Every structure is written in structure tokens, then in C-alpha cells.
């Protein structure tokens, strides 16, 4: 159970049960789909861009606790930032959730990059390689949305494998 708490921190459960910025934007400048075939999760990220400013980000979709909370936390973290700051944050976040590769050594976490704030609660995912994709799904979709040259929908399928 203690291990479970490390993965599913209270903040995560809270954002899972009450996702923030949940729902479509009326007039999004960009939209992207993300899907994780591993668990069938689907996510749609709406982005309101104003030049270089990410004014607001919302999301819709159904996923596991980790992917829902990660999306919810992401929308809070990036709304109002400059595009470049979002990219930096995205980078730092991915480092956070992948860096220790399950060794559990917190000291391995990246020391540089922007402050992750509440996003830190997702650090526990590092111990669960198979869940890392849950935590980064929304971020992949956001990146796809921002990269899309034109307004419109972008598709981002998280690659995965399924055997049994």
C-alpha cells in the first residue's frame, strides 16, 4: 500500500476524480488527439493560442487515474505560459517521469529546467515503466497540437505493443 501511495498521491486521486479544465474549448486554435492503444485511452487536447502565448488548454476523454490526472495537471501548468516555456516544461516533465528508469533513486531526477511545481506528484511513475506513457499522453497530444502548422486536428498515437 505504501508503494501505491507513492504512485497515486492524493493530488493525483483528486485530479482523477475532479479533473480541471475538462471539456472542449469553444474556439480552440488547435486540437490534437492522443491515444494509448495499450489501455485504449483516448484524449483530446484543445489549445487556445495567441501568437506565442498559450492562453488556455483544456482536455476531454477517458483514461486511467494517471493519464487523467496528468492531463488535468498539465492544463493547469501550461495555461498562460509562452510556447517556449511550455516546451521547456514538457521536456523537464518527461525527464522527471523517465529519468530514474525504475531505480527509485530520487537523486537521479533532473535538477535543472523550470520548476515543476505540482507536476512533481507524478514522479512516482518512474518506478512503473509501463505507466510512463499514461503520464505523458496528454503532453504528447499537446506537443502535436502546438506543432500542427495549421489550425485543425492532429493525431498522435502513442506507439505501443500488445501481445498476449
Amino acid at each position, binding site marked *: *500500500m505504501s*508503494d*501505491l501511495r507513492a*504512485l*497515486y498521491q492524493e493530488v493525483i*486521486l483528486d485530479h482523477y476524480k475532479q479533473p480541471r479544465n475538462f471539456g472542449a474549448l469553444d474556439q480552440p486554435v488547435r486540437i490534437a488527439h492522443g491515444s494509448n*492503444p*495499450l*489501455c*485504449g*485511452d*483516448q484524449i483530446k487536447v484543445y489549445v487556445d493560442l495567441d501568437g506565442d502565448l498559450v492562453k488556455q488548454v483544456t482536455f476531454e476523454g*477517458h*483514461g*486511467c*487515474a*494517471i493519464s*487523467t490526472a496528468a492531463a488535468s495537471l498539465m492544463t493547469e501548468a501550461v495555461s498562460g505560459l509562452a510556447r517556449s516555456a511550455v516546451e521547456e516544461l514538457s521536456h523537464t516533465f518527461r525527464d522527471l517521469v523517465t529519468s530514474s528508469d525504475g531505480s527509485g533513486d530520487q537523486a537521479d531526477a533532473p535538477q535543472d529546467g523550470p520548476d515543476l511545481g505540482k507536476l512533481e506528484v507524478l514522479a512516482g511513475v518512474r518506478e*512503473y515503466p509501463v*505507466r510512463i506513457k*499514461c503520464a505523458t499522453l496528454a503532453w504528447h497530444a499537446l506537443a502535436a497540437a502546438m506543432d500542427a502548422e495549421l489550425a485543425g486536428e492532429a493525431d498522435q498515437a502513442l506507439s505501443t505493443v*500488445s*501481445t*498476449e
Partner: protein
Amino acid sequence: MTLDAKTAFDALRMREIVPALRQEIGGHPLVYLDNAASTLRPQQVLDAQNAFEESSYSNVHRGVHTLSQRATQAFEDARETVARFIGATSSNEIVFVRGTTEALNLVAQTHGRQAVSEGDQVMVSEMEHHSNIVPWQMLCSETGAQLVKIPLTESGDLDLDVYHEALSERTKIVAISHVSNVLGTKNPIEEMAQSARSVGATVVVDGAQSAPHLGVDVEALGCDFYAFSAHKLYGPSGMGALWGKQDLLEAMPPWQGGGSMIRSVSFSGTEWNELPYKFEAGTPNITGAVGMAAAIDFLEAIGLEPIAAREAELLEAARSALLAESSVQVLGDPKQRASVVSFLIDGIHAHDVGQVLDQEGVAVRVGHHCAQPIMEFYGVASTSRASFGVYNDASDIDRLIDAIRTAKSFFAV
């Protein structure tokens, strides 16, 4: 449980027999309920493989030296064991393959290409594993044939009325799983095969989930091909068998070319070898064959009937316990079923269910189980699945239910 079966299983003391079951996960003794994905190997299977490696391994066939003769003997004995296990008339009808998937692809790419042309139909059911859909999709897109779906009903049975109705002279192949890896449905192959035969279609049975759990007799099933994997019946991964009717196998072109599938090779032409070697190009999984035979010996020593009876009881006990649990839903209620049950917990995503259960030492599989059409049918993205094997017992079901309660309380549902 019948008394006899009980004795058989008690006597086995499975945790002593299967080394992987001796471990703890998350501080709890492992409860392994992921048998439909793959099974754990009994010591005697590992021992048989190791002994073979130490005293008899060599490449098979052709060799004059002692090891090569021993290896050939063991390899061909394994083929006999597999043939007997599924009631094949001759071991010539047993083609060793990597597993069910390769077996189905072999049939689709040889017999399929012979039998199916533009405008024909291939029928597969809505409950198939991707391995029994995609090869036929590929065949259909190659030939211009049509892939027709035998639909599911809410209970998780196949809609046989639709099936019988849909069969026609245009139906060339009917491909169905014997037992569903998601719903546990046991399909009425005998009946379905009979109708298929009456329109001249060949019947391909995906036996991945039936071979380990039911006593299978391919002749009685009335099918033309039967495919299964060793790793689902306590044997090694990378090993499986395709059974096919001799006349069909003989009429089929080879699939892969290379050593062992030829009689003679020259640049002016090549002659194929006889059955089953025509379909076994290259060095096979030799030790895998020995392991597969040892796994069959293991199963037969317990007896397939007691196994089926015991697993049926476990399945029903698990279904009842799951149905009695608040917030838990069980997928389907098939008329005849075996060894597998899928469930959902309201408010907890299957991925999270799997995570909590793992922490409690209970291994289940979560996801779409390589059967996305079933997920689509029930309108779910994924399920949790418990599947039983010879080494499970009633206490494993208690542990499963306890872990589900932990999950519910953890997620406050």
C-alpha cells in the same frame, strides 16, 4: 469439485511444483491469474528441457551422429505426443510452429490463397483475438474477398442464427476461436463446423484457449485446422502446433522455403518434402518441442477431465464472487464457458485496477486483450481479466476479491 479431482490437485501441491509460484510480489505470495496470456512452467517441464539440452541436444534430422539421432527421436516423439493430445489420426498432420498466430498465418497464406478469390467470403467472429482476424483481413485485402463478421450477443455468445443464415456457397473459410480469451465463451464448434462443411467452407479453429483447458479431439470437432500455443499450456514460448487434415495439408503449397522442407534443391528447380516437413523450413524449436511434450505429459498425468472440472468450478466461484461484489460488473454471461472472466469496477480504470491488484500480489491482465472488437461491442476501452490454470485454487479467488476491495477502498468507490 468431485472427490477424485480434489485428490489429484491436493496431491499436486502446485506451489511446490511450479517454481515461479514460489515468489512474492509486493510482499505477498504470488497469485497468478494471467494464464490466458501465458502460463508458468512446472519444474518437470524445465527439467525435461534441461535434461534434453545436457544429453541429447543437436540439430534434428539428417545427422548420423548419436546426439543428432537422439534429438531427432525426441523431436518426433514430441510430435506423436502432440498428435495424440488433440486426437489427430497421424503425426504427419502436426506442423510445429511458433504459436497460434503463426499457425493461423500459415493457413491464411497457403490454404487461404488457394481457396479464396475475389467475391468470396471469409467469416470470423466478433469475439476473435487479433491473431484470428488480421491474417484474414490481410488475405481479404489481397484477394478482394469479403471479411464477414459473426456477431456477438449481449451474453457474449455468438449469434448462431445470423451465422447459419450468412453461410453460403461464397463462404470459403470460417475461422473461430474454440474458447474466447476475453469472455471465456466456449463456442459450439461441432455444430458450426457441420454447417460450414455443408456449404463447402473449411473450418479453422483457434484453439489457443481450449487446448490447455478442455480435452480436445479435433476429429470430433469436425474442423479442418486447429491451432494452439505451447506457452498457454505450461510449455515454452516460441512453440506451438498447427493440426490440419492431411489432404488439405498435402494440397497446400509450402509457405517458407529453406532447409528441411525440400527433397532436393538445384537452380533448375526444387522438390518439396513430404508432410509435415514441407511446412517446417529451417531449424525448428527443438528444445521447445521437447518442452511442449513434457507439458502435455504433465497435463495428461493430472487428466484433462479433472482439469476441466476443477477449472469450471473455480470459474463459477470467481464469477459468483465478482457478481456479488458491489461496483463490479462481469462482462457477458455465455452459455458455455471456460477458465476466463473479464470484469470492470465502476469508477476505476482497468489500468489502475491492474496496478492495485499487482501491489497485492495478484496478477491479472488489463487492457483490450488483443480483442478490440469485443471492447467495441461492449463499449468499453479495456477490462480486467482473471484466467485460471491448473495451479489455481479457491484461495486465489479470495485473494482476488480482497485485492478488488483494496482497490475500491483506495479509490473510494
